[in-house]
């Protein structure tokens, strides 16, 4: 009876030792952390990420500057078009403005 219980304890202990050993081996503690960080592919990716971030900032600045110039030009052009349309629309619709003067004429209009 006693030896039977002892064998069970021995088996349980062996299982515990087995799993502990497995966990330890799976963690690969002999591989140094710095080795993984120094992987050249990771380093290249990190550098590329940095470069892209920098480029995106520069591009954003350029776009914002051009957009600001465009908006100013657009406002100017819109006001020019509005003024011109107002002038063109007003001129033919309004009554003619004419008076007899004693100035020398710039041109003479004759029978068509």
């Amino acid at each position: 009876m006693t030896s039977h219980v002892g064998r069970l304890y021995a088996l349980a202990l062996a299982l515990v030792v087995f799993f502990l050993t497995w966990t330890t081996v799976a963690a690969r503690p002999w591989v140094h952390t710095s080795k993984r960080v120094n992987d050249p592919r990771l380093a290249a990716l990190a550098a590329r990420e940095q470069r892209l971030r920098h480029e995106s900032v520069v591009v954003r600045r350029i776009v914002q500057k051009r957009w600001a110039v465009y908006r100013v030009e657009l406002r100017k052009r819109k006001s020019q078009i509005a003024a011109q349309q107002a002038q063109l629309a007003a001129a033919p619709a309004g009554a003619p403005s004419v008076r007899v003067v004693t100035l020398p004429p710039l041109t003479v209009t004759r029978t068509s």
Partner: protein
Amino acid sequence: MIARRFRAMGTDVELFVEADDAERALEAAENEFHRLEALLSRFRPDSELSRLNDERTLEPGPDLLEVVELALLARVRTGGRFDPTVHDALVAAGYDRSFELVPADGPAAGSAPCGGGVLVDGRRIELEPDVRLDLGGIGKGFAVERAAVVLAAAGPCLVNAGGDLAVRGGSWPVGLETADGQITLELDRGAIATSGRDRRRWRRNGHEQHHLIDPRKGTPAETDLLRVTVVASDAVEAEVWAKALFLAGEDAAAAEADELGLPAVLVTVDERTRLAGGLR
């Protein structure tokens, strides 16, 4: 100020613009004249107007359509004194080719009925049998307006095409022939047109003919006026009323100009000048 002169629509055209650099606008305005002449001339067999007169029905471009609509509206507004269907009457009177080529004299002139039907249905124009259109005067007024719009983009401007003149912006002294000399009108906006029988005239069998047809008779108009100048809001309007007042005769023309508020200068056959329509 920059000026350009060229010949189009059988007359000398002058463009003036107050700007330092307006070459492109001047070029565009001149091109507009030539483009519209190519569409609206009855003397060019390939013009849209000639095709309409030949084929009786046509779906033309927007310019011919607009001019025909303006002419038909003018026919209604002037009680038929302005009428685009005078083509055959002009030909019967002897004006059957570009004016420079019309013989000074020839066999007796005839007449032709005017006032026939012109139907504008959407974008299609249809002419009744024996109806042909002449858009000479109103076409020139239309071209003057279009050129003025193009030129106005460069600055204040004046467009003068023979008897039709329009200004946009600025203040322009314009000379007019009167019975005993010349007066100057200062025009700030609007247009001036002059219709008369002192030019574009010829003889047939010894009788004087001219290009202002009375649509009621189908022959050159007989009136106590030699020349009428009208100032209006645009060159088409001025052209239409100059012709209509010319046909009305001195007293009726003066009364109508006063009533409509159209500044007008009437020169009579017996060499008097009369101002009307509020012009002093």
